[in-house]
């Protein structure tokens, strides 16, 4: 499968600021993307998803942006809170499989 990578392995933000986590993918045929959050000692938790026919999708305090031209995906977290500290993964659906990126560790500074 194609690789799914992240620009930054770690990200530190001040509490209350907005966070942006980026992800690059390489397969233009991928039709579905997901962001997961993984807290220490726990399994990944679904945050938000987006299909390839969309550019933007919003959830509660989170927004996913998809730029198919440059094959780039981002997760924006508004008003970051200490509870947002975790590793964030993007995942790319390619045909009948799901490929995860390497993860970005987000640390929220109180």
């Amino acid at each position, binding site marked *: 499968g194609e690789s799914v990578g992240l620009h930054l392995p770690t990200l530190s933000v001040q509490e209350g600021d907005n966070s942006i986590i980026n992800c690059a993918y390489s397969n233009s045929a991928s039709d579905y993307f997901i962001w997961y959050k993984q807290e220490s000692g726990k*399994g*990944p938790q679904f945050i938000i998803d987006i299909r390839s026919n969309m550019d933007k999708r919003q959830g509660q305090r989170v927004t996913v942006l998809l730029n198919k031209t440059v094959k780039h995906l981002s997760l924006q977290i508004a008003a970051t809170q200490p509870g947002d500290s975790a590793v964030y993964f993007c995942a790319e659906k390619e045909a009948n499989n799901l*490929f995860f990126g390497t993860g970005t560790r987000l640390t929220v500074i109180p």
Partner: protein
Amino acid sequence: DTAVSQTPKYLVTQMGNDKSIKCEQNLGHDTMYWYKQDSKKFLKIMFSYNNKELIINETVPNRFSPKSPDKAHLNLHINSLELGDSAVYFCASSPGTGFFYEQYFGPGTRLTVT
């Protein structure tokens, strides 16, 4: 109530042994998965079952054998354990196949092979 549960949470064993990890989901989902997460946090799918039938079998050594006695359970049996099998193994479930459905992950089983 735990949606997806795995046992054991920690498993330490020696090379060459055979071990099993159990997974159960009480969400009524049709599809279950096994993932492996290595020391660098890289997460990779191993198997996927839908209504007890295997639908995805990634490039995994045949020492790994999933077994689904019913659609609420998907166990993972590993024969002749090797050092490289050390990882965290996650079970997950979803309402349907094709990855368009939200997956619910278990808490993971940390396997250490010495």
